[in-house]
């Protein structure tokens, strides 16, 4: 009985992962030194899946994710990466345990994400559509 109670509690904890309320729209940002003004959706997908690693000028791409608590992440994953959260987790498990790579870092706040993008010339990330990008450059997804 105790084991059953522990299992039920664990299930409840597991299924009750907190997410932030708010709109799930997103905007893609890059470092202001990056000359691009728009980014191809397939290229953006491959950058976040680490299938491509360089911008057209040879600079290393440094994707950065928002943590799962942001609704914008689920929408970005669905619309740009064309995967569900489970499919994305499986994809990264395959990459991790075959030694091919690890997922992009995750920012726990929009401020952390903007700081990362400003510190890395090759960075690309996304913010909730109502978040302040600061000095980062917002680019159109085509």
């Amino acid at each position, binding site marked *: 009985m105790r084991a059953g109670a522990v299992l039920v509690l664990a299930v409840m904890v597991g299924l009750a*992962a907190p997410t932030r309320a708010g709109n799930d729209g997103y905007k893609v940002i890059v470092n202001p030194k990056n000359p691009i003004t728009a980014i191809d959706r397939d290229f953006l997908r491959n950058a976040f899946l680490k299938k*491509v*690693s360089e911008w057209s000028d040879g600079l290393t791409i440094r994707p950065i994710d928002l943590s799962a608590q942001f609704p914008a992440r689920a929408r970005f994953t669905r619309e740009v990466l064309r995967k569900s959260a489970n499919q994305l987790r499986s994809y990264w498990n395959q990459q*991790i345990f*075959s*030694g091919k790579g*690890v997922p992009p870092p995750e*920012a*726990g706040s929009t401020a952390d994400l903007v700081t990362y993008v400003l510190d890395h010339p090759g960075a690309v990330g996304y913010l909730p559509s109502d978040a302040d990008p600061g000095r980062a450059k917002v680019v159109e997804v085509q």
Partner: protein
Amino acid sequence: MGTLGRALAVVLVLSPIASADPDDGGAALPPVQIHGFASEGGFVSTDNDYIGASSRGTLEFFEAAINFQSDVTDKLHVGFQLYGRDVGVYQDLPPRLDWAYLDYRFRDWLGLRAGIIKMPYGLYNEYADIDASRLEILLPQAVYPLADRSALLAQTGFALYGHRPLGCAGELDYQAWLGTLDIPANALEVSGATLDSSDAKYVTGAQLFWHPPVDGLKIGVTYLRTSIDFQLMLDAANVQALIMAGLEPPTYDGSVTISQRPDSVYIGSAEYTRGDWLFAAEYARWETHQESNLPPAVLPPFDRDSERFYAMAQRRLTPWLAVGGYYAAYTIDVDDREGRNRTMFPRPYDAYQRDGAASVRFDVNDHWLWKVEAHLFDGAADLDPTRNASPTQWWGLFLFKTTVVF
């Protein structure tokens, strides 16, 4: 210093170069990434012993791995993984070095890996031991047999790989490799003899996956070729029998060399994901030419062409529940599908094994999952004859498993 020691030294010595930037606002990856998983489960069959002592039920269904990876520079990635298992008759304890390699990506269309590298074969061979990345407990055994995992999962050598966009025609992923196989002594099931050693002369192959401009679809082919010599020592009873029959001289010591030159494997693969659905199908042929130094009357040379395929469908019903199933078939000799050769197949159903499977996966959270699975088999081609003297044709297998991954 052993192989493991060298791998650890490479990762730990090189990783400080990739130190985290203190101004990253807490978003950077640590210099060395550590990931792992552990699984435990059990299985029971209605008849026959499959994988282990399944007919009486067993909890020998443990797997665990831990890996260390680091991006030394923007283009150089290093890492290694330790893997151990106690899965019925298949044992990797103490844990073995599963993969360990340097990965240098010159361009997106050309990268080089060197070391112990997971070997591409079809859709899932590189990920065959990653329980958390799939729905099923057992991948279709016709195409991904557990018995060959230790031999086929990785090669020691070099691999070239790349990714190439094709504009409106989609994208290509490709790999080519050359190396040798490290086959553990316990990787093969041998009856009437003891495997002393194996010597894989080479393994080479290539894989091409095309992602056409249809969301979620990928189509690919893999070709793999190897040449292996097995050194065995016959049991005393068999040595005596050969001498008594006049097939070997009285001084015969029982040593046998069996050469498989070559083993050629071809596989065609297709996977389609749409929303919560996943469909996959693969068709493979394994061609073997085998010779030995025993008299042809004892072990004649032969050519064998086996056929393996499966079709699979899965659906994720909720973020925490997924279901699916597959039908798989393995035919030992494609020229004798019904087992008419009584010398080779004592019973017709020894010539094939057909497998209908249904699976349920329950994700407790992102790091913990449970699975249950049921199989209905027709045939005995994949059963070890030393453990199944009189196998039954129709039999069931039930498995459960829980995995923690981080």
